[in-house]
C-alpha cells in the first residue's frame, strides 16, 4: 500500500538536458511510485521524448540524477552503474513501448520470436516454455495466434503496438515507458489498446510513465499528470485535479482549448 513514507520506484532530481544550445528539458523533478501511472503532456517540442529517453536509460543527461529502486540494492543512480548492469535492467525491470513500432520490434523476425526474445535475453532456454509463454502473451494482447509465424511488416499499426506490449510485458517489468503509444491509430483501435494497457497495468501492478498529447486518454489512464512547456514542468498533480482545477496559465489554456473531457 502506498504511504508517504514509501520509497519511490523512480526518483528524478534536478534533471536538465541540452542539445548544444538547445534546451531538451530543464530542472525536472519527479517520482513514480509502485503501481502508479504517471502521464506527461505538453506541446510539441516541450521535451517529453527527451525526458522519457533519459529516464529509461537511453540518453545520459547533461545534469541531474535518476534513481531506480533496484530489487536488492535499493535506489541506484542508473547512469552511475555499469553499462551491462543498465542493459540488464532495460531487459528485465523496464519495458519501453516506442511511438514508432519499428524502433521497438525486429521487423525481420516472426511475431512469436519478437515476443520470445526478451525471455531468452533473461536466460530462458526451454523452447516449448518460451513458445507457450509467447502464445499466452499474444493471447493477452488479443492477437490472432494464426499470425504468430508472420513477420511484423505484414501487421497493421494497432497489431504492431499490441506486439510491442506483449514483447515488453512477457518479462514482467516493474516500470514501463510509453511514448505516444496510440498516436497514428484510429480512434476505436486506440480505445481498445488503452483498455488493454489499463487492464494489464492493474492486474500486474506495474508502474508506467506515459507520454501523450491526448488529455482524454490521460484522464482515463493516468493517476498523476505532469504538464511540460519549453522543457520545464509547469504543473504536476493528481490527474483529475490538474484537468479540473489547473493552476498554471499554460495548463488553463490547454484545458480550455479542448472539448470537454
Amino acid at each position: 500500500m502506498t504511504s508517504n513514507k514509501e520509497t519511490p520506484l523512480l526518483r528524478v532530481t534536478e534533471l536538465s538536458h541540452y542539445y548544444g544550445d538547445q534546451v531538451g528539458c530543464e530542472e525536472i523533478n519527479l517520482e513514480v511510485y509502485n503501481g502508479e501511472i504517471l502521464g506527461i503532456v505538453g506541446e510539441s517540442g516541450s521535451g517529453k521524448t527527451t525526458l522519457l529517453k533519459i529516464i529509461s536509460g537511453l540518453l545520459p543527461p547533461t545534469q541531474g540524477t535518476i534513481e531506480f529502486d533496484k530489487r536488492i540494492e535499493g535506489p541506484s543512480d542508473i547512469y552511475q552503474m555499469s553499462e551491462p548492469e543498465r542493459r540488464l535492467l532495460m531487459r528485465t525491470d523496464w519495458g519501453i513501448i516506442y511511438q514508432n513500432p519499428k524502433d521497438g520490434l525486429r521487423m525481420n523476425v516472426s511475431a512469436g520470436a519478437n515476443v520470445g526474445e526478451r525471455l531468452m535475453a533473461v536466460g530462458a532456454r526451454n523452447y516449448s516454455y518460451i513458445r507457450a509463454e509467447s502464445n499466452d502473451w499474444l493471447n493477452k494482447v488479443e492477437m490472432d495466434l494464426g499470425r504468430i509465424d508472420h513477420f511484423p511488416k505484414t501487421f497493421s499499426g494497432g497489431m504492431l503496438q499490441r506486439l510491442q506490449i506483449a514483447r515488453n510485458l512477457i518479462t514482467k517489468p516493474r516500470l514501463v515507458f510509453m511514448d505516444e503509444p496510440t498516436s497514428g491509430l484510429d480512434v476505436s483501435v486506440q480505445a481498445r489498446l488503452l483498455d488493454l494497457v489499463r487492464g494489464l497495468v492493474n492486474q500486474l501492478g506495474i508502474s508506467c510513465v506515459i507520454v501523450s498529447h491526448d488529455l482524454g486518454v490521460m484522464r482515463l489512464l493516468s493517476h498523476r499528470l505532469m504538464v511540460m512547456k519549453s522543457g520545464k514542468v509547469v504543473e504536476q498533480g493528481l490527474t483529475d485535479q490538474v484537468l479540473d482545477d489547473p493552476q498554471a496559465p499554460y495548463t488553463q489554456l490547454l484545458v480550455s482549448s479542448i472539448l470537454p473531457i
Partner: protein
Amino acid sequence: MKNKLREVLSVNNLKKSFILHNQNSFELPVFYNISFSLSKGECLVLSGSSGTGKSTLLRSIYGNYLTHLGEINIYHNQSWINLVGAPPHLILDVRKQTLGYVSQFLRVIPRISTLDLVAEPLLSRGETEVNSINRAKDILKKLAIPENLWNLPPATFSGGEQQRVNIAITFVRDFPILLLDEPTASLDTKNKQAVIDLIKNAKDKGTAIIGIFHDQSVRDSVGTTIFNIEEAKKAA
C-alpha cells in the same frame, strides 16, 4: 453536543478561490473561513443558493480542486492527516480506502460493462472475483438497474440509469466517509427511494456523509445537520 471520539473529518478555515490566468488573472473567490466537523453516522447537508460553492467544497475535500489555505483533517488509516498540501499519492490512498465521492455525472472508461465497472473497485483491492461480482450484482439489483443492461457499457444508458450506476460504483464499497453531489437529481420517486434507503443504511453502519440534495424530501429523510455556506461566509 458532538462526541469528539466519533469525529472523522474536520474542516478548519478553508478557503477556495479560482485564479483565471487567461482573464487578466482575475481572482474569483468562492468561500473562505469554512469550518465544520463531521462524525460517524452523521449526514451533513450543504445548503445555499446556486453558485455559492457547494460542489466546490465537496470537490475541494476530495482533492479534485486544489486548496491552499485552511485545513481538511481526515481520519485515515488509524490516524489524522491534513489533505491541504498532501502529496498526490497520499490523496489517492485516501480515495481508495477512506473517502468516496459520487459526482453529478458518470465518467468512466469506455467499452467496459456495467457489471465490471461496479465490481472493479472490489477486485482492485484484492477481493475474489466471485465475491466482487456477487456484490456488484447485489447493488445493481438494489438500484433497480435492469439485468439486461448489466453486460453493456453505460454510455448508451438514460441519465437516471447512468446516475444509478455512478452511485453503485461508490456504494459497492464501504467507505467510512462519503461525499454526495446531488445523487438523486435525475431520478423518479421510486428510484429516489432506493437511493435514500442506501444512504440510510450506510448511516446506520456508521458512515459519515456530506451531501448536496436539492430535493427537500431527500434532505428531510437523510439529513442530520445543515451547513449553510452563505451564512458561514457572512459570519466570517
